[in-house]
């Protein structure tokens, strides 16, 4: 377990942008001290293909999600990659999941086209620029990575107080009410990703471990181009181009959390 954990943190740390990394001299071996701080960028461990961004964001083309199979494919890709346990009922865990229009956009319009009202919308952590979950966490187990905007979790530090769940306005967080391990299909388990323990909170990580290896997030890869991912700070990125050419909305913008996930309607 601790080995997996170490590798995981190294990978997560490796995703740092070089500017931030160069400021942190002697950060070597820091990531190995599991549970004692956000993964610090480690130039030495940087994967040569790692993707770099200063504000990762996502654009979901909801028009493309008319096929329930595609929805399921994205959800499964994420949940299998990250060993998300399959528990039914109100104590379930989910990192990304489909919801209807009314649940997704709680401040909704009337008389919408049926195609919109009946569409499935994929919900996940918005990796808010101004995340209330980070603000309330009493242990810094939830933190925002300054160099790429990803809201990350240290499950070895989390005390399971669930303050962050009360604070997240998007219902993006799940708590391990049960020991998750028996609920992971062993045949499909991903040995490269750590499993969690009972009593901690978890959520989507924007696939930090995949970005560090130069891979797109799992849901993006599975979406056949219906989900775009890229650097919102880069005007030439696919996400920025999509935002410039299509009408998009974000969830609950009035709360000032500044979500990094956009929906093309």
């Amino acid at each position, binding site marked *: 377990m601790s080995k997996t954990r170490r590798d995981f943190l190294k990978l997560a740390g490796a995703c740092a942008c070089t500017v931030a990394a160069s400021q942190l001299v002697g950060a070597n071996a820091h990531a190995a001290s599991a549970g004692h701080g956000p993964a610090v960028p480690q130039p030495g461990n940087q994967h040569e293909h790692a993707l770099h961004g200063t504000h990762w964001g996502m654009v979901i083309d909801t028009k493309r999600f008319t096929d329930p199979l595609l929805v399921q494919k994205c959800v499964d890709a994420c949940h299998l990659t990250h060993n998300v346990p399959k528990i039914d*009922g*109100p*104590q*379930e*865990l989910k990192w990304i999941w489909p*919801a209807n229009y*009314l*649940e*997704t956009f*709680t401040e909704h319009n009337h008389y919408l086209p049926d195609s919109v009202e009946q569409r499935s919308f994929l919900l996940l952590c918005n990796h808010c620029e101004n995340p*209330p979950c980070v*603000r*309330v*966490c*009493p*242990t*810094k*187990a939830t933190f925002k990575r300054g160099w790429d905007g990803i809201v990350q979790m240290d499950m070895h*530090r*989390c*005390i*399971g*107080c*669930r*303050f962050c*769940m*009360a*604070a*997240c*306005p*998007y*219902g993006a967080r*799940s*708590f*391990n*009410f*049960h*020991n998750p391990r028996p609920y992971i299909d062993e045949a499909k388990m991903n040995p490269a990703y750590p499993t969690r*323990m*009972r*009593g*901690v*909170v978890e959520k989507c990580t924007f696939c930090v471990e995949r970005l560090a290896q130069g891979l797109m997030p799992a849901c993006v890869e599975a979406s056949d181009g219906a989900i775009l991912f890229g650097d919102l700070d880069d005007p030439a990125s696919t996400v920025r181009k999509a935002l410039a050419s299509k009408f998009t909305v974000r969830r*609950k913008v009035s*709360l*000032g*959390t500044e979500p990094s996930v956009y929906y093309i309607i």
Partner: protein
Amino acid sequence: MLEKALKGSPLYWFWLFFLACVAGVGSMAYLYQLNFGLSVTGMSRDVSWGFYIAQFTYLVGVAASAVMLVLPTYLHHYKAFKKMIILGEFMAIAAVSMCLLFIIVDLGQPQRAMNVILHPTPGSILFWDMIVLNGYLFINLLVGWVTLQAERNEVAPPKWIKFFIYLSIFWAFSIHTVTAFLYAGLPGRHYWLTAIMAARFLASAFCSGPAILLLLAFLLKRLVNFDPGKEAIKSLAKIITYAMAINVFFFLLEVFTAFYSDIPGHKAPIVYLFSGMDGFAQWTPFMWLAAILAFLSLALLIPAKLRDNHELLPWTLLFLVIATWIDKGIGLLVGGFTPNMFETVTEYVPSIPELAIVLAIYAMGAMILTVLWKIALGVKQEVGHF
């Protein structure tokens, strides 16, 4: 002074034994929870806090209410509360102890609780809550013990303790304000996102806490013939009346804002609590009971004639305690989480182990209170103060 707790009537020992049994059963339930996680509770992804945090919130109020005796005594040199002030301070100790236990049993990883201190995060209200609660526990232990010791030795309490007494006044307000900030600062939780949350908390604390204290004082009168004095009861009842009136008024302010502004998000939790939503209405009878009892208690408190009737007063106080407990111990949490972030309803029903653990913590609190009060009354008896 501890030896005072070791000599008691059979009733005293039987009561402690009974409480120990309740605590024992609940501890088994807690062991069960340790083994199977919080999955044994009724909490869920959508209602991620439940009875534990609700009791915690209610008891912070009970703890803070000691200030309703301390403030008149030390800031206004009001003599009548002198005799029972120690009871209030010791009740605060029992209440804060229960608060801390409720936090611990609510944690998913209780063995990591120290992370709050190892990784201090001043931006988190929970961090401050931990500091103020422990501080309040310490202050009350110190003040209670030192003043009682002085009473026993029949000398005036040392001068330096004044500092801690004044500090305790400020601190009492701080514990409930900070606890309100746990809720009031969260975007997207309409029922909690209100500037008068702290004020409401204090108002409900300052009626429910003294009401419990007074109820217990009536019990003491029956059991050991300890009389806090007519004047003290009269004044405390008056304080309770004002606080309850303000408490109800504040709640009505919330209702006005929600319904006159007609903003759906603000109305939704109140609608859910009082009339149900999407076919879910489990808590409606409780909320209406609370509303009726709240007005009934006010009707029985406001006319001085009824308030000063000591046959009636315990009933009035009981109604008030039930009303405020439902409001804070059920309504506050359930209303905050329902409707959920998707504007749908997930109902919360506390499980049997969860209730057993809640009862166990109350039993432990009652044990602490019994022992502390036994000591206090023992000392008072020794020096002939009752």
